[in-house]
């Protein structure tokens, strides 16, 4: 199982703070997970593969599209950060 969390604008657009899902065998990295979620249609497609930049983290560290996923990981999607 994979835990997926959403923050800020993504959390609002998707209407949820997170979910758990079974990682299909063909999904091996962040790029694949984004595509899988976007394939659900709206609002997922727009939120995850629209014009706006989306960042990802795996197990509390910033990740890239090519970051490999494994069972038990905590993944997060969020907009570029705006603290400080």
């Amino acid at each position, binding site marked *: 199982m994979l835990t997926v969390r959403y923050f800020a604008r993504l959390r609002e657009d998707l209407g949820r703070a997170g979910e758990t899902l079974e990682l299909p065998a063909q999904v091996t990295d962040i790029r694949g997970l984004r595509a899988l979620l976007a394939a659900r249609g709206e609002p997922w497609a727009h939120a995850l593969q629209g014009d706006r930049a989306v960042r990802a983290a795996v197990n*509390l560290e*910033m990740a890239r599209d090519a970051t490999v996923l494994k069972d038990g990981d905590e993944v997060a999607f969020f907009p570029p950060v705006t*603290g400080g």
Partner: protein
Amino acid sequence: MPTIRVQEADFDIAAEIAAVRAGDPKIGAVASFIGLCRDVNDGEQVAAMTLEHYPGMTESAIRAIVEEAGQRWKVPHITVIHRVGTLRPLDQIVLVIAAGGHRGEVFAACEFVMDYLKTRAPFWKKEQTARGARWVEARRSDDEAAARWNGETE
């Protein structure tokens, strides 16, 4: 030892600097930065803002930034306090204190920590304006400010 806190409560810079200096006669320089909530942003009046974070990741991201500062400069004490929740104009948002032997190192470390915090620590601001609520957009100038520490050019 670094002090890293993410909290809703306000902070007192005098108390935090006193805590950093307490009993350490090797500290000859203290630099600090405070970020404040303004009443205007991108041409709109801001009545309040809400700061969201990613508990766990935010603290570890700040810790990594502080550790990197410690590798670059001889700065034995760094404090980072960042508030979350609802803040209003005039409120304090963030405090960075760098303390060490000499001013050059603590000035640099303080600015470095702020620049990296703006681009690497997961916080998100949502502003309440007269036209409704809006998420603050990340600024390209913040990416550029962080990149210059690596000699990177855009």
